[in-house]
């Protein structure tokens, strides 16, 4: 009984505390750089598309809201010909970012995506691709992977020996 009265008093005292409410949109909340908001596709330091259309984000997505279709340029570099995110289904869980082996797909601190028409929540690649590296700087997947693409031959990736001549005697 005493504790109930004490509770009443303590709660009443809260009337004179500082408010925690942030008056959005006049005031904006601070969103940490790793906040999971709008999804973007980034580019590597050389300006090439980071996405290699490996489909891992799509399979990781618990609401299946990512669809893509791979394409290849003439040098064998794979990229998504189509990349679509249905943000009306997205739950911003960030699994796609965690699954991405190339840092291509990233969630950025932007939450202002509301639309009056649900159809406008469907983003195509042109809406997703940005001209920057996003949160992760300096990483270039093809500099690590042992696959030859335009501008990078066999054995030219990090930690690789030059190609072997199978006709060599040793």
């Amino acid at each position, binding site marked *: 009984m005493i504790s109930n009265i004490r509770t009443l008093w303590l709660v009443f005292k809260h009337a004179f505390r500082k408010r925690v409410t942030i008056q959005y949109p006049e005031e904006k909340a601070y969103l940490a750089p790793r906040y999971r908001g709008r999804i973007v596709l980034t580019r590597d330091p050389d300006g090439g598309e980071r996405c290699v259309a*490996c489909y891992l984000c799509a399979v990781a997505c618990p609401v299946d809201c990512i669809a893509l279709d791979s394409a290849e340029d003439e040098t064998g570099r*794979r990229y998504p010909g189509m990349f679509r995110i249905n943000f009306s289904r997205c739950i911003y869980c960030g699994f796609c970012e965690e699954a991405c082996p190339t840092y291509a797909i990233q969630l950025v601190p932007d939450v202002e995506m509301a639309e009056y028409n649900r159809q406008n929540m469907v983003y195509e690649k042109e809406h997703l691709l940005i001209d920057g590296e996003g949160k992760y700087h300096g990483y270039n997947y093809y500099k690590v992977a042992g696959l030859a693409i335009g501008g990078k031959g066999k054995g030219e990736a990090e*930690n690789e020996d030059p190609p072997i001549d199978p006709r060599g005697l040793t």
Partner: protein
Amino acid sequence: MATIHIDGKSYDADPGKNLLQVSLSLGFDLPYFCWHPALGSVGACRQCAVRQYRNEEDKDGQIVMACMVPAADGTRISIEDEEARQFRKSVIEWLMTNHPHDCPVCDEGGECHLQDMTVMAGHAYRRFRYRKRTFTNQDLGPFINHEMNRCIQCYRCVRYYKDYAGGRDLDAFASHNHVYFGRSVDGTLESEFSGNLVEVCPTGVFTDKTLKHHYTRKWDLQSGPSVCAHCGLGCNTLAGARYGGVRRILNRYNHEVNGYFLCDRGRYGYEFVNRPSRIRHPLLHTDASDTDTLSKPESCSPEEALRQARDRLRNARRVIGIGSPRASLESNYALRAFVGEDYFFNGLPSAESHLVTLAAEILRNGSAETPSLREIEGADAVLVLGEDLTQTAPRMALAVRQSIMRAPEEKARAVGVPPWNDRAVRDVIQAERGPLIVAAVDETRLDDAATSVIYRAPDDIARFGFAVARAINADAPPVEGLSDEETDLVQRTAKTLSAAKYPVVISGVSLGNEAILQASANIAWALDREQKPVGLSFVVPEANSVGIALLDSAPLRGAFELVSSGKADAAIILENDLYRRTHALDVEKFFTGLRTVVALDSLRSPTTDRAHVVFPAGTFAESDGTFVNNEGRAQRFFQVLSPEGDVAESWRWLGRLQSGSAPSDEPRWKNLDEVLDAMAAELPDVAGAKDAAPRADFRVAGARLPRSPRRFSGRTAILANLDVHEPKPPDDPDSPLTFSMEGTAAMPPAALVSHYWAPGWNSVQALNKFQDEVGGANRGGAPGVRLIEPEKPIHSYFTKIPDAFSPHDGKFVVLGLHHIFGSEELSRHAPALAERIPEPYIAIGDADARARGVTEGRELVLRIFGREYKLPACVRPNLPRGVLGVPFGLPGLTGIVFPADGHLLE
């Protein structure tokens, strides 16, 4: 049965198998690389290490490779042993030291045996800090992509390519950690079975190049159980589709038919499904009968097309139906039911129709059973009469190539080497191979494996066959006038076949020679009369050739006569390009005599261009239906994707066409089962087709079976560009399968398996879990039902022996030479496969060439039935005199009825 002890528990095991195979069959997850159920053991990869104990008291034991130890009675092993575990983990870690960091861009990723085994063995963190060795890749042609960096040197590729498939242009080069698998120089892989490297390679060194161009992960492919439509063998396939197109074909294991492997035509022919020349909507030709000014076809709504077709057919004097050996049994039956038995024609030229019917007749009423491909693999003596199997029935050639190991294997077994111990077997037998006798008109791709080969004109091949029958059984009709060389081979062949435990005789219809079929039947019956078990197999040209033969209908000629006599003036042509079947002039005349032509087909062809109404028929990937293969096995294929546009199965169109014209009228058949039931009631010969697969109301644990894998992605985004509100997945009234991932995860019956996956097994080798024992029968039995079983009477021999072939001066017998790539109608349209189609040529024997002074590559002009063909010469050393060959079915060479009389013009 032996009893073996694994980790202290006792299990029954087949002592004829090795411990790895037994452990996997018992459900243990033991990693392996170099072993393959079809290739046997070599113990190269050191991955399947287990600890073996000498007896119950032995506590130390020793590490052994499970794949190299027989499952002898009383064997004690431990899979869970800590040291064995560490051993397996270390081996993987070491295999991975040079593996590139490229799973995201590797086509094998997600269905990679190496990924599975790495996880299974427990290797997770890379400790190797040094640099990786790299290789350059080779261009291996349009089918196979090469990425050598990913190689783990398990040697499966060369063991498959050289030892199993008989290829010569893939090999291992260099030594130690430089070992390189490839060709000596860049270039297309020659083997017709190179596509299997995709499934044999445990990692991403060899991947499907056609898939690469529209790459989709395994988990994203909506797959369905399908049957290859590109030859008469009916190999089982898994077709995978995404975004409205078929993206690849994988092998679907059918213990009795194709086992683990497909040919490249079957694997890469699928792309015709995605061609722009596909008919997606009904077409109307306002005036197709006017040949000079062919009006452009206009697409229209299905209702409009149906209305027009109904009106036109109702006003016709008589409607005839022309079926097709490449349409399903159901579609052919639906047409037969529409036009009536007497007005249904099988769409074949008379000769081919006669031969296929004869083949079915011999198998049904003769005393010899027709073997499945597995039984051909098990034969210890094979005689091939007049077929170039690699070109006409490729997968059968691969089966024949395995049969030559059977006799030598017995020798190895005698010295205590079991057949699964591949390297040791080959060391024992060295170059010795079992009997394979080939009689052909020209070199075949099996010649290198054959113990004896003779090249003769078709009639002489038949005579050789008749003589062999006579040499086996004295009641058979004799053949006069054979040469000494021939007589010698006849005697040897007869002796070999008589001595064999299970000889198989193979012939077919590709030479268009009736006597060859009769001769092979005589041989089989002769062996049967000598109380020998024997198999008799006929090669037929198309996916449903036997099926249409069982429908028992008249050839095209009958239809032509009905039209030219004015009795009929309307025709429905089912998935058949008549211009490929017979002379263009006859076809022209036929069309001119018709007032109404209704065609159903999937691709535009000269025939559909002559039709007034064209309905878009589904390909194998968009249809449900049944094909009957060369052994009379009815096999069901199911839709892989729900069709785009108005595409539907032909039987469904025909059902709609037969309903009343009011929109509320029900079609004659609502689903596949209704067609099958009606067919079974009317035609007892094909009634068994009903049981080729479970019916549409079949359920496992009350649920349907999903076509999409459990991890199918993008469900809520694939169609979001059209409408953000997702549509309901399409219904499937024809099968127990769904067009989504909804349904049970339980093991389906073999006929309904749409993808191979098991926990921890993402690669194609998850198949292990779908077999009774690894490498053995499908769980619940192989899919399909055999419609032909011989009645076993003693059949009287064929006695009409042709005269020896003698070349006439200036007049040649022209034969159609089949090509695996190009001779088949549909696969020809697949871009990758089209790259392998040969340029047209005229094959001429060395003797004739010399007599006429023809050199390789010279332009020859050949006149057949008044048409002249101007093509370069191709001089063949073994082609008999008086015989010419032109490639069968290539563009520009269609409509010739082989064998034809031809004249070479100077």
